[in-house]
């Protein structure tokens, strides 16, 4: 399968339930060698052989970049999602041989920052686990604000408090604790960079407030891998390969293209990296764009689509694939 990265043959070395929703998975190389070094914020794409189906989901690496004997990811169970997280929770046991991609970082630290201000929501904590470990090892200046639903669902909150003490602030939804965002953003020293990872609503809120308060765009970093959304089935003609395919309601367009034996490049499978950008040759219907890659103008033009997360409803769609 063509992708932007090299593959790693790994074995699941441990599976650790963290709380009611989140389970941590540990991977080691099958040949016993060290895994590639990575930088905080990097993700890997995990290949899941689920019966006839291959699922490819990106997960942030959450271990310390200083220790490459194993990689760790944390997966939040999504009972109404398309099944990748359920597969991980139900079928992945210690000893299982899996294939993962080399690490790719689309959410890296800006090492010029005088201070790194991090805002995490829920499972969005995972890239910050690696970034804080990296910064702490280098004596970096960071502060982490972490919002979770309840204390018991505050994945790794205790660990982070233990490691970094007052540099970590916790906010619990059930206790109606809220980040005083405007105050926080208004009181940062010059040269601070802002990082946010969490639900789309949180990312948008933080980006909007930062912009309103005059933060330069290049100091605001966010990671939001959109999971492909289910939708109505639709048919697509692939002009280059001469195939007509049907995209199932639980399938992404990219997955359907791959199932037909056509392999567009990809890195993130979440509408961020831009690798699978595809030209539209003709269409009669409407697009449901879910990516963060194309500009609004490109979305309106109807001439491009990101097949990893976006869908189509209508009579006909012809793509340059």
């Amino acid at each position, binding site marked *: 399968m063509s992708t932007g990265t090299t593959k790693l043959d790994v074995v699941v070395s441990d599976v650790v339930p963290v709380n009611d929703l989140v389970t941590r998975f540990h991977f080691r190389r099958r040949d016993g060698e060290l895994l590639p070094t990575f930088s905080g914020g990097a993700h890997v794409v995990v290949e899941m052989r689920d019966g006839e189906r291959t699922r490819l989901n990106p997960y942030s690496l959450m271990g310390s970049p200083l220790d490459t004997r194993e990689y760790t990811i944390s997966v939040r169970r999504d009972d109404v999602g398309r099944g990748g997280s359920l597969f991980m929770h139900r079928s992945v046991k210690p000893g299982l041989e899996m294939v993962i991609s080399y690490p790719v970082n689309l959410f890296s630290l800006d*090492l010029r920052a005088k201070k790194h201000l991090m805002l995490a929501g829920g499972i969005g904590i995972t890239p910050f686990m690696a970034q804080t470990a990296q910064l702490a090892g280098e004596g970096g200046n960071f502060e982490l604000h972490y919002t979770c639903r309840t204390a018991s669902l505050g994945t790794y909150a205790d660990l982070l408090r233990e490691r970094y003490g007052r540099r970590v602030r916790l906010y619990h939804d059930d206790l109606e604790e809220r980040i005083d965002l405007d105050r926080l953003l208004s009181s940062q020293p010059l040269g601070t960079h802002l990082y946010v990872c969490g639900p789309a609503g949180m990312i948008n809120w933080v980006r909007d407030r930062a912009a309103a308060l005059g933060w330069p765009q290049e100091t605001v970093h966010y990671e939001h891998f959109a999971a492909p959304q289910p939708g109505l089935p639709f048919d697509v003609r692939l002009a280059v390969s001469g195939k007509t395919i049907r995209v199932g309601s639980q399938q992404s367009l990219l997955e359907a293209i791959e199932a037909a034996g056509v392999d567009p490049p990809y890195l993130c499978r979440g509408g961020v990296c831009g690798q699978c950008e595809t030209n539209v040759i003709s269409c009669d219907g409407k697009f449901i764009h879910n990516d963060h890659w194309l500009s609004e103008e490109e979305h309106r033009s109807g001439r491009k689509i990101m097949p990893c997360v976006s869908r189509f409803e209508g009579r006909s769609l012809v793509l340059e694939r």
Partner: protein
Amino acid sequence: MGITFRKETFRDDFTFRNSPEHIRRFPFPFHEDSYMYAVNIEPHVVGPKGSVLENLIDVDEHYVAEMQDRALVLAEDPLRCQSLPHMTLAGWDLLELLMEQQALGYPEHFTLKRDGDRWRWINRPLGIDDTFTFGDTSTLPYGPMEYITRQSQGDFCILDQRDGNLWMDAGMVTTQADWSLDFDIGMNFFEWHAPVPLAHEKGIFVRALKFLTNIQQGKPARRLNWTMTINPRLDTSPENYHKWGPDRATVTPENVGDKVHLRVELQSFWRLPRSNGIVFPIRCYLIKMDELVTQPKWARRLHRVIRDLPEELATYKGLTRYRSTLVEWLSKLDDGSATSQGFGPD
């Protein structure tokens, strides 16, 4: 069997030469009888034995002499090596890459022993045997980038990746074709390429940047670039233009074969793992016309390429002063017969 390192100079008496084996391994950059820019980037994978691609970081018979020349340049002008404060981690990435690759390709000359953070580096050609703590700059005589690039052939630019662009934020540049790190430091990809003619109109830099920002760890890429240099001078920097610029007026029909050199850059691009930066080694290979034309195919092809080169490119590459003399000299070696496909000699 190790490499026999030549004793030679790249200045003053210019004793630099290629051995017959090194002539045949020269990375001749023209696969056809004409030249125009293209995004000629390909995966940087190991190539045939006996070629400059036999190892991903090439060490050749000029290694020791090039490192001596670099030390001379740095003694005169320390600003040829610069690293902005946020680039130290990338410097460690580069140190690891170059030590690993050189030890892997040339175990008779280089040895790297790693015990956690305690590393021992043995460089036999330069008589170095150092033990240091990886990540602790105080345990090395220079910063990590300067330390290892004083022991590695070629220039090195380390690019920080942010805001969808690449930034020239560190480098060791002493064997350059008329550009200056001190001038370009801190610039982004479009800024430092601004002087290049024609390529902007073709949208080449937009596509090249998109490609480079997507370079992945473990999957380096490469391209060849070329120009010409009078005398085998590695350091043709703008800072030293007064030393080498006038050389271009010294070419005569009698000395073309000895003075005019084809200068080829093997440029590669690697993702750095800890810093998420990109390192861009620019490895310079020189060959004088007398050596190059020992391969008749190269003589015929080079004649046609230089003769038909668009005027803007000839000017940008600084060929104008001696182009007609060179073309006239090469024309005598071109019988008009066809040249075979590909780069290599027949």
